[in-house]
């Protein structure tokens, strides 16, 4: 999405434009759902959680930040909602199993069925490995490597020192690589 496009969308939502809000929901539903899924670990819960996040964003639309600050702010709101959700569900860490249905339903642009299956399998492997990480490492990998936020933004969202994020980011990638390898051995190759 172009920055100007996003700014227009944000301005429209802040002004209470229903069409702008609908466009916003349709554009960010995949992203918010992916983030919710990384916390909830279950497709149905992720749908509920993603909806809660959108409702919260809608209620706070007058306070939306503009420009480059919007996405980190949105992720912070989503993260806070997710933590509340997990607290309510009394589950600190999501189950260490991958939802195969979610892997199958991934929107893949791959042309052939074989390539799609292979791609889906690789993503499923990554998702399964991510589920096995500790909560803080998973959050860092998801925010930094999956959603592409900067180290400063991740530190700000998680409320931990910059140095901790730096050191944990590299360690989390190593841990993820180990888990991917272990899972791949179990499945018979990467």
């Amino acid at each position, binding site marked *: 999405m172009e920055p100007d496009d996003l700014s227009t969308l944000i301005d429209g939502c802040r002004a209470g434009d229903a069409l702008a809000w609908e466009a916003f929901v349709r554009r960010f539903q995949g992203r918010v759902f992916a983030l919710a899924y990384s916390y909830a670990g279950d497709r149905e819960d992720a749908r509920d959680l993603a909806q809660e996040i959108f409702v919260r964003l809608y209620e706070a639309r007058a306070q939306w930040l503009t420009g480059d600050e919007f996405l980190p702010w949105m992720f912070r709101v989503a993260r806070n909602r997710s933590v509340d959700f997990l607290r309510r569900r009394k589950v600190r860490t999501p189950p260490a199993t991958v939802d195969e249905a979610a892997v199958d339903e991934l929107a893949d642009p791959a042309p052939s069925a074989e390539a799609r299956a292979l791609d889906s399998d690789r993503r499923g492997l990554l998702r399964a490995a991510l589920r096995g990480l500790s909560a803080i490492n998973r959050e860092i990998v998801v925010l930094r490597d999956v959603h592409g936020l900067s180290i400063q933004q991740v530190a700000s969202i998680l409320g931990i020192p910059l140095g901790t994020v730096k050191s944990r980011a590299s360690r989390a*990638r190593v841990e*993820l690589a180990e888990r991917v390898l272990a899972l791949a051995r179990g499945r018979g190759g990467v």
Partner: protein
Amino acid sequence: MSGMTCDSVRAAALDPGTHPRDWMRRPEVDAHLRRCENCRDWIEAFGAGEHLWAAEPAEAFADSVLARTAGVEALLAELPSLAEMDPGPGFAERVLVATSRRPAAARWRVRWAEAWRAVVRRPRFAWEVAYVATVCWVLIFGNPVGAWEWGASNIGAIAQERLGGPVNELRTDLESWRARWAPEPAAAPGAARQQVDHVHPALRAWQAGAERIQRGAAYVFDALKHAWTSIAEWVASLVQQMWPPPAEPQASPARST
């Protein structure tokens, strides 16, 4: 016994920046490695032995580990593709419905319902209810002993109706037992009156309030009883009208002889 855990040993190997390699801890690490086969394998697999005490930065070591895990880094490069997931059909519509403007009354109802659910789901809710109920009980009926006496006397009255003689004997015994433990009566004849006058005004107000509540409850109970009786009578009369009892057979006229 060494205080090092597997995590702390591996963290020290990976991340010397946040886990300074104090030479005084080296015996602990060595002791841990001697007894922990998993950590030995881990360090050997990732070539971390020389990094454990060397001054190589953590980032470089992480890169070297990733390089050893051939093929994985290509997979990790696909992490950004996980940024979006299809939430399934109808999700956007569901969100739009949830965020569409609703009547104020409905919103208030929803908010109250949510607030009530949040209160009920609190882990100490039962304790809080018990506490509030106890406070209400004490405020209405006085102290718990008074409430117990009030309840006991009523139970006694009911029991007396049903059982009669044995209960009377038991009550006499209880009265004599209570009199034995009761405080000495005041010497002056007007002392009791004076004692009553010295009751704290707030306490008197609470007692008056409790009395009113009891009277109100009795009134409501009587009204309900009256209403129920009226309804029952009305239903009975309706039933009687719809299905009247069979008429008495008329006596056959006396035959003339």
